[in-house]
C-alpha cells in the first residue's frame, strides 16, 4: 500500500514539474470543445441531445487516448530500469491506473464544464451523468494504461496505440454512451442499473487482467 502511495505521489510531482504535459492536455480538451462549438455554431439549436452526447464522448475518448499514451513513454529508459529494480510491477500498474484515472477525472470534469458552457446543457439528471463520467474515466484509464504499456514497447507506438485501444474500448464506450443517454433523458436510476453493473464488471475484469498480465510486460 505504502509503495503504491509513494508511486502515485511520484507521478504527481513528476507531472507538476513538467507542467507542459498537463497544461497541454487541458488545452487539447478546451480547443477540441471549441472547434466542435464553432463547427456547430451556425445550427446550435438543431443540435439534438443524441448528437450532443455522442460528440462529448468522442472528445473524451480522444483526450483519454492522448493523455494516457504518454504514461510510459514520458520517462527515460534508464529510469524505468531503476523502477524495475526498486518496486513490484503490481504496485506500478495499480499506481499508474489510479493516477491515470485521476487525470482522466480532472480532464473530463473540466471538459464537461466547458462543453456544457458553450454547447448548452440538456442533461436531465446531473448526478447520473457525473456517475457515468466517473465510471468511464476509471474504465478508459485502466484499459488504456495496459495498452499504452504494450504500445510503448513497439516502435510505431502512436499508431499502435490507436489501433489497439479503439476496438478494445468500444464496448465500454457504447455502454457509457447509453448510460449517459439515460441520464440525459432524466430516466429513473433503476432503468440504468443494467448499464452500471455492466460497466462496473468490465472495469473490474480489465483491472484484474492488468494486474495479472503487467508483470510479464514489465519484464521485457
Amino acid at each position, binding site marked *: 500500500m505504502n509503495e503504491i502511495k509513494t508511486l502515485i505521489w511520484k507521478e504527481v510531482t513528476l507531472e507538476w514539474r513538467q507542467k507542459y504535459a498537463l497544461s497541454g492536455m487541458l488545452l487539447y480538451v478546451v480547443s477540441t470543445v471549441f472547434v466542435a462549438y464553432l463547427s456547430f455554431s451556425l445550427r446550435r439549436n438543431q443540435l439534438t441531445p443524441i448528437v450532443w452526447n455522442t460528440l462529448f464522448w468522442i472528445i473524451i475518448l480522444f483526450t483519454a487516448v492522448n493523455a494516457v499514451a504518454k504514461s510510459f513513454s514520458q520517462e527515460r529508459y534508464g529510469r524505468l530500469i531503476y523502477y524495475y529494480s526498486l518496486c513490484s510491477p503490481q504496485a506500478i500498474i495499480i499506481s499508474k491506473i489510479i493516477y491515470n484515472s485521476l487525470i482522466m477525472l480532472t480532464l473530463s470534469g473540466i471538459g464537461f464544464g466547458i462543453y456544457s458552457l458553450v454547447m448548452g446543457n440538456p442533461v436531465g439528471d446531473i448526478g447520473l451523468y457525473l456517475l457515468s463520467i466517473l465510471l468511464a474515466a476509471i474504465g478508459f484509464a485502466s484499459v488504456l494504461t495496459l495498452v499504452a504499456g504494450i504500445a510503448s514497447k*513497439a516502435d510505431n507506438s502512436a499508431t*499502435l496505440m490507436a489501433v489497439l485501444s*479503439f476496438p478494445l474500448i468500444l*464496448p465500454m464506450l457504447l455502454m457509457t454512451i447509453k448510460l449517459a443517454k439515460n441520464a440525459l433523458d432524466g430516466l429513473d436510476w433503476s432503468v440504468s442499473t443494467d448499464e452500471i453493473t455492466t460497466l462496473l464488471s468490465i472495469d473490474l*475484469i*480489465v483491472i484484474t487482467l492488468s494486474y495479472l498480465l503487467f508483470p510479464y*510486460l514489465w519484464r521485457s
Partner: protein
Amino acid sequence: MRKIWWKILCIVIIFYVILMGLMGEVPHLAIINESIRNTYYHVALWLAMTTLLFASMVFSVRYLIKGRINDDDIASELAKSAIFFGILGCLTGSIWANYTWGDPWPNDPKLNGAAVGILIYLAYLLLRSSFEDEQRKARISSVYNIFAFAVFIPIIYILPRLTDSLHPGSGGNSTFGSYDFDNSIRRVFYPAVIGYILLGLWLAELRIRMKRINRVREEITDSARPVTH
C-alpha cells in the same frame, strides 16, 4: 503417416456437412424457410472460431508461464485461422441476412460486435508484425491476446443480449435450442462444429510446421555462415 486419422475425419465430416446442408431434411419454419440450412455453416463457423480463439488464449497463457516459443507460434496461428473463420462467418451471415432480414448488413449489435472483434484480432496481427525480436514479440503479443479474448467475449456474447438484436437469444428473442433445433438439425450441426474446428487446427498445424522449418533453416544458415571480423 503420422496421426493422419483426424485429417481424414475432418474431410469426411466436411463433405457430410456440405452434402447434408444442401440435400438433408430440415424443419419448415416461417420466414427463414429453407435458409435454416445456413445454421450448419454460419452458426457452426462462429462456434468454431470462438473455440479456436479460446485455444489460442490458452496457449498464450502457457507461453507466459513456461516461456517456450512454440506455444506462441501455436497461439498466433490458431488466432489466424480463427480470423479466417470469422471472415467466412461474416460472409455467410451476410448472405443469410440479405434473404431473411432484407439487408446484407443490418444495424444489429451482434454484427457490429463481430466486426469489432475481428478488428481486435487484426490489431493483434499488426502488433505481432511490429516487433523484430522473437521473445519480446511473443511475450507482448501474448499479453495482448489474453486481454483481447477477455474483451471479445463480452462484445460477442454478453452485450448483444442486453440490447435488442435480430439474432436469436437477445432482446427477448428465445435462444436457438428452445424452439427450432430439432434432431435433424442437431445431427448435422454438431458434426459441423467439430469438422470446422478440425479444419482450423489443420490450417494452423500446417503453418506452424512451416514456421518451425523456417526457423531451423535460419539457424542452419546462420551457423554455416563464416564468421567475419
